[in-house]
């Protein structure tokens, strides 16, 4: 997964063996470590088999659709968060940006509170606004040198505050059939929201694997000082990454408004924690430089399967939080290559 950052020109042409013996050596000593990156995936498979063994209905096609549907919004949000975390930063503004997105959309399309009817044009405007908020996050973070933790924490409150002001605390119902169809209409048996989430996955995967920005993100996450010295435009990349995050949180706002058929300031509440958890459970390290969008897909699926499975197995609500906690720690313990960590904070 680690991108090979181009070595200084003097080394160009040196055979790759120079660096690989050490790696091969370590892997031969501990063959299991070669499987480490796939640990979350195995965890997902094991979890599914376990739940399926106890309740065969888990594997019904209808249940697969339901799991996919409950994973769609978390996936879009977690994809936005992934790049930020790979950078070694964090974006806490999920709930605020999502609220602004959902509230703007519900006020701009046909609704029960005003006479607007901008349809998809309104949706695009709202998502662009969310992208702009993300851009502001990034610009303030690099421009004023404030840790991303603080900037985005502030933006979270601002977002919820603005959403509250826009609505005066009330809830707006989305009447627009087109918007609702994202959640209510199906294509090839799956709700359209699921296809949108998959499309987002495809686009972010291309950004990660096929573009320069994708490479730069890993370089910065792996060692920002080195990345800066090798001429990577660190500040610009960071702003772009936060903008992508804001845009995807806005898209999450669209899907939330479509799913519940309403917009209010608290529509995103609880999303931050589940988003960060999904990213980390998938094997993306909070320290940056490791993981990626496929890990995030696996992490989101683990959380969705877990949520679905606990209801299917009838696990008592008193125990569910505990079970969830144990499994999160297990998943991270399996996937982190602790031998390579110098410091654990």
């Amino acid at each position, binding site marked *: 997964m680690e991108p090979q950052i181009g070595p200084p020109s003097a080394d160009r042409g040196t055979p790759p063996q120079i660096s690989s013996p050490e790696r091969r050596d370590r892997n031969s000593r501990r063959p299991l470590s070669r499987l480490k990156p796939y640990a979350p995936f195995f965890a997902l498979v094991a979890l599914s088999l376990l739940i399926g063994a106890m309740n065969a209905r*888990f594997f019904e096609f209808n249940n697969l659709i339901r799991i996919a549907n409950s994973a769609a919004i978390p996936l879009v949000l977690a994809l936005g968060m992934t790049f930020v975390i790979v950078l070694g930063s964090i974006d806490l503004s999920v709930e605020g940006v999502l609220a602004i997105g959902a509230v703007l959309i519900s006020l701009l399309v046909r609704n029960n509170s005003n006479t607007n009817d901008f349809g998809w044009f309104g949706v695009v405007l709202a998502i662009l606004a969310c992208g702009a908020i993300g851009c502001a996050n990034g610009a303030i*973070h690099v421009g004023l040198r404030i*840790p991303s933790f603080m900037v985005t924490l502030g933006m979270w409150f601002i977002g919820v505050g603005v959403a509250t002001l826009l609505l005066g*605390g*009330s809830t707006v119902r989305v009447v627009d059939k087109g918007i609702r169809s994202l959640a209510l209409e199906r294509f090839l048996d799956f709700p359209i929201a699921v296809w949108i989430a998959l499309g987002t996955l495809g686009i972010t995967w291309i950004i990660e694997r096929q573009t320069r920005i994708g490479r730069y993100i890993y370089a910065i996450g792996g060692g920002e000082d080195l990345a800066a010295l090798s001429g990577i435009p660190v500040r610009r990349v960071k702003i772009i990454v936060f903008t992508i995050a804001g845009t995807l949180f806005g898209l999450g706002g669209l899907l939330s408004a479509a799913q*519940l058929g309403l917009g*209010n300031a608290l529509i995103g509440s609880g999303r931050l924690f589940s988003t960060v958890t999904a990213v980390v459970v998938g094997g993306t390290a909070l320290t940056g430089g490791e993981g990626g969008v496929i890990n995030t897909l696996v992490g989101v699926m683990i959380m969705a399967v877990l949520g679905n499975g606990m209801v*299917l197995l009838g696990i008592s609500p008193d125990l569910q939080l505990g079970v969830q906690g144990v499994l999160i720690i297990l998943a991270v313990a399996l996937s982190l290559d602790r031998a390579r960590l110098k410091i654990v904070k």
Partner: protein
Amino acid sequence: MNSPNKDITGIPIHRRTFLRRTAGFAGATAVLSIVPRRAFAAGTPTMVNSIRSLSNPYHATWNQGGQAFAKSIGADYVTLVTEGDSEKGIADIRAILAKTGGNMVLNVDPNDSPDARPIVDACVKAGAYVVTQWNKPADLHPWDFNPNYVAHIAFDGVHYGEDTANALIKAIGGSGGIVALGGILSNTPAIERKAGLEKALNANPNIKLLDFQVANWKSTEAFNIVSAWLTRFGGDIKGIWAANDDMAVGTLEALRAEKLAGKVPITGIDGIKSAIEAVRAGEFAATVSWDPYWQGSMGLSIAYAAKTGKIDPAKEPKEHREFYGTGVLVTKENADEFYKTHIESEPKIDFNDYWGRVTGQIRQS
């Protein structure tokens, strides 16, 4: 990251700079939270509502009620919001007590039960009159603080949890399987409403509770749980009981996504607008409205009556000092009427009818 004094961008940031920025941010929030509508007039006491936030429909309506009452007596009106922070809630109340010199009445929904004590203490000390709602410690009683602690108002969760469960049971014809969604396990209303549900179930042996899950009062969590229930129980689910309207709305949308909206009756509690609309549309069997407009206005009105001598708290019976208010069960029969009087127009409330909605003294547990 390799040196403690660098932030993520690798540029040194001094602790003092960081502290100053944080303090500035916190200060700005504190100033913004006290928003006086007009300049404070001398003489007429200031009307103060302290609530969780203006972001939820419930407290927003509460606030409208407060505004309407203040307007009716020509007093200044102030809204304080705790945003779920007990410290902030108490500090803001102390600040406004100091600012008004105690010439105010306070209607407060304390963020957490223990908060009620310092709030009442501060009001007694400043000579202000206070009504608390929903949360207070069981051993804190208005009659121990005559005349300043005028009353405490709550709603009987057991009673209304049972009411909505009975409405649900009626809607499914008295027999079959139901599932139920509860609120945060440690919340008093969640515990009470669930107890009400269980009472109704005990009285109706033909109804089987297939599963009880906790969706933490949230639509989104309810959505996912209901989806999974459809896999587990499928058509065996004849009705769904939810401990609040937000979860009931999430339930409804999960059913709608499976083309089941309106086919499986749902009940909620709280009486938010979407819930009333769903009852009218036949998608909810029932909800209960607490009438937050009444809570926001009458809490002030009762305290104001004590301050101006219209009532003498010390002479009022205990069931006027600690009482359960009246909720309205909204079903298909009264939904249209309720919508007209409470949603489309501002509710008409007789601000001088202090005890009209008393339904008994709060149980001492």
